[in-house]
């Protein structure tokens, strides 16, 4: 399947291990990714807060670039926040023809146009895995079932709320996909209080205490529920849960040491990819315990 691919800024900046893992996993799943290297940041909710017309024009530009990729089935992103921010703009663009025409005027000098199309979609890798590739196909391709690995899902707000905007009418299980993918990889999903809550990233520079209390609490809950690691489809969540985890510890008054995997890393492990190729050594919270469990599996097989 050929896809227009928006990796997002963070995967190319502060979480390069995500970008690398996705590149390694794609061919294993028969995905051909055409990276949108001329596209711009989705605004992550901040540009929307500043000016709606601006953010709608910027994301319409990304959609238009994606629609120009010849033979692409649709557009894929690997960031819950991109998904939410872009879906918000798409909702407005699709709702009102006059508004869409007006926004398209900003793209015209560049020869671009966003076309509303019933069949055109923009999906996070998580949605794509379940809806376009299919869990059966994923299961077939798993060569190293992650037997005994206990994984806590962490979705990220932007990919589960608001449900009306995010297509839950049509795909009501979108808030259960992570559990389904964890299972398809042969691992065991762990339920804990924070799985669908907020990591606190958007206020890390505005109210550090609120932000780190959220991150710390969720990791502590996952730890108490017996998770070996958590997995997230959002690199911004990863920043607050992994990069900031040592800073979050004092706010919950305990040591955490909870490894946080990116979704393509978990899938890559099950597809038999090497831990180095997946960048598991490039995390702040050491992933050694996860690596050891996986190595033991490989030895057993």
């Amino acid at each position: 399947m050929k896809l227009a691919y928006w990796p997002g800024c963070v995967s190319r900046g502060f979480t390069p291990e995500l970008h690398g893992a996705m590149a390694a996993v794609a061919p294993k799943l028969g995905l051909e990714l055409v990276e949108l290297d001329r596209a711009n940041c989705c605004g992550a909710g901040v540009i929307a807060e500043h000016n709606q017309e601006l953010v709608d024009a910027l994301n319409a530009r990304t959609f238009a670039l994606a629609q120009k990729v010849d033979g692409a089935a649709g557009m894929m992103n690997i960031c819950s926040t991109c998904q939410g921010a872009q879906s918000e703009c798409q909702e407005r663009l699709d709702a009102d023809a006059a508004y869409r025409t007006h926004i398209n005027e900003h793209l015209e000098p560049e020869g671009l146009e966003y076309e509303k199309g019933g069949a055109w979609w923009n999906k996070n890798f998580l949605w794509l895995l379940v809806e376009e590739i299919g869990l059966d196909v994923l299961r077939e391709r798993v060569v190293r079932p992650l037997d005994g690995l206990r994984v806590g899902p962490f979705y990220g707000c932007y990919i589960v709320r608001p449900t009306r905007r995010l297509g839950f009418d049509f795909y009501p299980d979108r808030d259960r996909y992570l559990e389904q993918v964890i299972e398809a990889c042969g691992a065991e999903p762990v339920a804990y209080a924070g799985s669908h809550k907020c990591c606190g990233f958007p206020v890390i520079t505005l109210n550090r205490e609120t932000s780190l209390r959220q991150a710390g609490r969720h990791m502590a809950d996952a730890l108490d529920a017996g998770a070996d690691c958590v997995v997230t489809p959002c690199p911004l969540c990863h920043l607050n849960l992994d990069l900031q985890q040592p800073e979050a510890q004092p706010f919950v008054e305990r040591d955490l040491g909870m490894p946080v995997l990116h979704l393509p890393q978990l899938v890559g492990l099950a597809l038999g990819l090497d831990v180095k190729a997946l960048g598991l050594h490039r995390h702040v919270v050491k992933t050694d315990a996860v690596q050891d469990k996986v190595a033991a599996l490989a030895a057993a097989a």
Partner: protein
Amino acid sequence: MPDYTLKIRRFDPESGRPAYWQEFGVDLPEERSVLDAILRAKDEQDGSLSIRCSCQAAICGSCGVRINGMSRLACNTKLSEAAEDGRNGAIVVEPMGNMPVIKDLIVDMDAVHWKKVQRVVPWLLPEGDPPAREYIVDPESMIDVTQSMACIHCGACVSACLSLEVDPEFIGPAALAKAYRFVGDPRDAHTEDRLLDLAEDPHGIYDCTHCFACVEVCPKDVAPMDQIMRLRRRATADYGIKDQNNGYGHEKAFTDLIEKYGTLSEAQLLPKSYGDGSLIRAQVKPAALKELGAKFPTVIRGLTSGKVSPKTALLHHKLQDQDQIRRIYEEVESKEDRLELNLYIVGESGGEEEGATSEGGQEE
């Protein structure tokens, strides 16, 4: 008639007993509400079961509870729908969150919700003597606040708010939505004071983590988070309020970086946002230095863990077509009024034929 099982969290502080769960079986048709089922159980099985309610038509806002973990109106939730999301065949009903429980499903709205609503001065503060007859306002200008007026004070958003969960002092979604109702009202004369107050408060508009929980649960589509974003927009763009929480700096730094590079560079975002968008100022402002110092270990950790190379941290490349991004910025920002499409007013696909946009922004 289908048989439904309700699993209700009970608590009576006067009993000396801790909270406990109790199950009730109720026979009612599937289109009846969870409130109907609770009242039936109270009527036929245990008269001490307590819940607040009145209108039974999603108008009075008194029957807010959590059903299968979601904050909602009991009278507005069908049994069939609730049973579908239920756990182990039971519909789980709990009192709302983030507020103390008085008894069973009744929470103390005064202690949290109403106190916070009062905090935002929820009445009109016009200037000078009132006109001899009515106030005349441009109908267009009132459209912008209709959404925030739809609130029925049920407290569902307060119950679901993920910032409140970790910071009980956060002013919260319902009260901030109410604040916008007056900030957006052209008759009010204290717009700037109101915004200044809410921007400078560490538990004000910049303490919202943008989690959409309030948007998801509100039975009246008030979208409190959207109202909070409107407050931020007015505070920064219209009044240039440089708050101590760094809300202004963060927004300005982010928006400017995209204008300059097209994509985001986190390494620059941090220092710039503490200097109200300027790298230089960040290095001379004492408060900015302190905050940056607190962040320094994080950046170093990013480098030493091999996560980020010094090259990515320090060099950020411009997009190929950066002049196009800059042109779009200029076209949009050079306008006098901001263009906003509010789907609450237009309807989700209702505007497909004609455009119905509202011009927000500065009136003075």
